[in-house]
């Protein structure tokens, strides 16, 4: 069991805001990836959505993690559109509705994150290896719980999660897409890293940075 750190809504907010900064910074890079195998708007969509999230938060942050993450999810759902909007929106909604009333323990956080990933999978029906964000999110969720189970610190667990997410994103390069727009390309979708998996790996990396020891 990991030691009982208290994860506050303030820390969760820092994580989400860090992700927003990252999406702005990586906007062009993500869009370039999407141009290769999609319709070239993933970076634009994610940046538009996370900007809206930050604007919303700046008008007043919800008091607890549950309400906070639900607000994030609803904002993404109503501002992004496309595939990424409902998928990321579902991730945050599920994370929020799984969160306890008060602060989170690392195990709570891992359970919430896993619930978010499960939400993405049931919403998008993607399996591992379909060349989607699931290929980054699922390894991250698994690595964090495993690490915590082995007694790792929350910081270490998140670091491992981020590594696995990045590894999973890189591993999408040789895959043939089976979901989303990229699947129209069939074989021609190989040789390119999936944009959604790439933005998801950044989400995991932001968590690791936020709670770094």
């Amino acid at each position: 069991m990991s030691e009982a750190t208290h994860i506050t809504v303030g820390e969760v907010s820092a994580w989400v805001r860090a992700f927003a900064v990252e999406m702005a910074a990586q906007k062009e890079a993500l869009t370039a990836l999407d141009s290769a195998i999609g319709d070239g708007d993933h970076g634009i969509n994610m940046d538009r959505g996370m900007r809206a999230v930050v604007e919303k938060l700046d008008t007043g942050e919800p008091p607890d993690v549950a309400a906070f993450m639900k607000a994030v999810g609803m904002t993404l759902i109503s501002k992004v559109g496309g595939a990424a909007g409902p998928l990321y929106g579902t991730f945050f909604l599920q994370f929020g509705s799984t969160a306890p009333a008060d602060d989170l323990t690392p195990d709570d956080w891992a359970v919430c994150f896993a619930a978010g990933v499960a939400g993405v999978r049931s919403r998008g029906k993607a399996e591992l290896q379909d060349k989607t964000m699931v290929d980054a999110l699922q390894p991250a969720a698994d690595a964090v719980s495993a690490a915590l189970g082995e007694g790792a610190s929350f910081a270490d667990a998140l670091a491992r999660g981020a590594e696995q997410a990045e590894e999973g994103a890189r591993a999408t390069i040789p895959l043939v897409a089976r979901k989303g727009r990229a699947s129209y390309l069939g074989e021609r979708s190989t040789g390119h890293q999936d944009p959604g998996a790439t933005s998801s790996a950044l989400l995991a990396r932001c968590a690791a940075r936020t709670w770094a020891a």
Partner: protein
Amino acid sequence: MKKLINDPADVVTESLKGFAAAHGDLVRINYDPAYIVRADAPVKGKVGILSGGGSGHEPMHGGFVGMGMLDVACPGEVFTSPTPDQMLEATKAVDGGAGVLHIVKNYTGDILNFEMAADLAGGDGIQVEAVITNDDVAVQDSLYTAGRRGVGVTVLCEKIVGAAAEEGKDLAAVAEVCRRVNAEGRTMGMALTSCTVPAAGKPTFELGDDEMEIGIGIHGEPGRERLPVASAREVTERLTTPILDDLPFASGDRVLAFVNGMGGTPLIELYVVYHELMALLAARGITVARSLVGSYITSLEMAGCSITLLRLDDELIRLWDAPVHTAGLRWGA
């Protein structure tokens, strides 16, 4: 990028405002969230018909809002599906107590957003059925793809289903008609030029002066094959044969033949293609019972065309002929 626009970020909203000003007799427009709704909505006791998708396909969908066709359309950003909150508000705006049909083109983004909207609407106690159009034979339909794209047949669905709803059919029956139209229709498209998304500022794909792209979608997605430009005769043949073989259409079938412009191709060319199509269908013993020639489901300023064939029966013909009064399609009213 050469376009008659102002700030690319405003093109959808400004175009909606122009549309509202030109067609205030037909529609009302809500801007946040954005939807174009029949002026007399909700029509009591009638099944509401909703469609929507990314902008850039005008007149689809907003141009098809009105008596005998759509009750409401949800426009997204250019080539980006609209959002569930839009669809939810739009659904509420047209629920006349008989439920609402969502006509959804098969793209992951559209599907996911419409699914969430349906969940939300259900939560609000509104009966919603969704029918997905997926008529594009250029995409192989398999477990390993997101499936075929919804293209030209969507326009025909909206007209025919709109008529079915005006007739007073209930939600299940209206949805059934929509599924039948989608099942009986096939489409394939081609591009002579790419198109430019205003926010992107440069063409979605590059096409040489002597190249054409066969099997494109309506978002500038790359197509099935790139070939040297060919005559209208050859192009028509390349689009029509896969359509005919796919359903398959057989000698004796009655069809609606729909030659659609992608936005930058003038009518004089579309009628040349239609002339070639007539020859191909006659040779197969297929009867053209109804036709539609013009730019109805477009891809911004892309030059090119798509061909859609819909197998008709007496009921579909009756529903096609029923009065319609929208900005984009109008007859009998």
